[in-house]
């Protein structure tokens, strides 16, 4: 799967609603999709840096571990019912969360919106 994670800083910065939902969000987010991994440095809702894995014992505030097949459904241009939202993936067991979940739930609109921005340019 090809994911445009490196484009997230610019895409998030260009989305005013995410700037608002992400205010005060400071977290080092480990994003894993199957064997692929990225570390996002997020400060005040902006992604300051994206590092591509693999990592050896990465340090993070929270980790989002996604099942590739489930995430591919989420990333479809017209996601099927039941796979159209981050919490829908959680419901189906296609999203596992680890670490400090307070920033995740406190900024849930940001996490949902930020990952939805990966739809453009994602390839199975």
């Amino acid at each position, binding site marked *: 799967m090809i994911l445009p994670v490196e484009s997230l800083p610019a895409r998030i910065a260009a989305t005013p609603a995410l700037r608002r939902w992400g205010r005060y969000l400071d977290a080092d987010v480990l994003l894993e999709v199957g064997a692929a991994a990225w570390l996002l440095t997020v400060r005040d809702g902006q992604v300051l840096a994206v590092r591509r894995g693999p990592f050896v014992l990465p340090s993070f505030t929270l980790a989002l571990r996604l099942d590739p097949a489930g995430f591919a459904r989420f990333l479809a241009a017209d996601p099927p019912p*039941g796979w159209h939202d981050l*919490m*829908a993936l959680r*419901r189906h067991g296609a999203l596992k969360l680890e670490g400090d979940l307070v920033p995740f*739930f*406190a900024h849930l609109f940001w996490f949902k919106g930020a990952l939805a921005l990966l739809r453009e340019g994602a390839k199975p």
Partner: protein
Amino acid sequence: MIEPITGRYLRLALEGRPHRLYFEEAGQGIPLLLLHTAGSDGRQWRDLLNDAEVTARFRCIAFDMPWHGKSSPPEGWQEEEYRLTTAAYTGMVMAVARALELDRPVVMGCSIGGRIVLDLAAEHADALRGVIGLQGSAFVEPYYDTAMLHHPRIHGGETCAAIVSGLVSPRSPEAARWETLWHYMQGGPGVFKGDLHFYKGEGDLRPKLARIDTARCPVVLLTGDYDYSCRPEDTLATAEAIPGARATIMPGLGHFPMSEDYASLRRYLLPVLEEFAEQG
């Protein structure tokens, strides 16, 4: 323009404690008692209350549960944690029906309301004309820790809305989707979590389904397919366990059909209401 909806307050006792409940109503005819979802309030029924085709034959009443909307918690609330239970919820609906002198109402609820109508059908069949459950099922497995909905480091309003935002269908009109979420943003601290005590734990109604007699109290379930909380398969399994119950899956709708896209819901709802109207 002034809408034909009127709002008033009702004073009554619930579980032995005095309450002041806000309710809105419109129309005349067969009483239709409307139950909102967890963590929201009666505004979810605004479009139905403005639907002249419904209000011509039904007296439609939507009340805010205690702790919700314009219904305050009972005196002493500050000393306790709000947790909805099956017995309290069923008792509340029947107490409101009695206080308003409703003669065998049809009860229609959504989500927790779509759940409790099953208990009402099991326990109070002869006092009702029938029940309609929107996004209703006998049980839903938890898939997140509801403690996050009431946490001093988390803004409850934003997070409650964000939790349910994906339950709204992406196909529903933008303005209605976000108004539905705004209602969640206005919920009191811990109230959505307290409702989910019933929805995701205590209120497992699977053991009661076999007791429902649809000859005495018809059961109709309508569920949108974008709902991943009460999924279509959850509703269908519930209907299968109730002899005579009818279930319809509504493509394109989410967890809040009456609030997020009433125009789409009414295509499925009006024929059901028509049947109740014909039965008188």
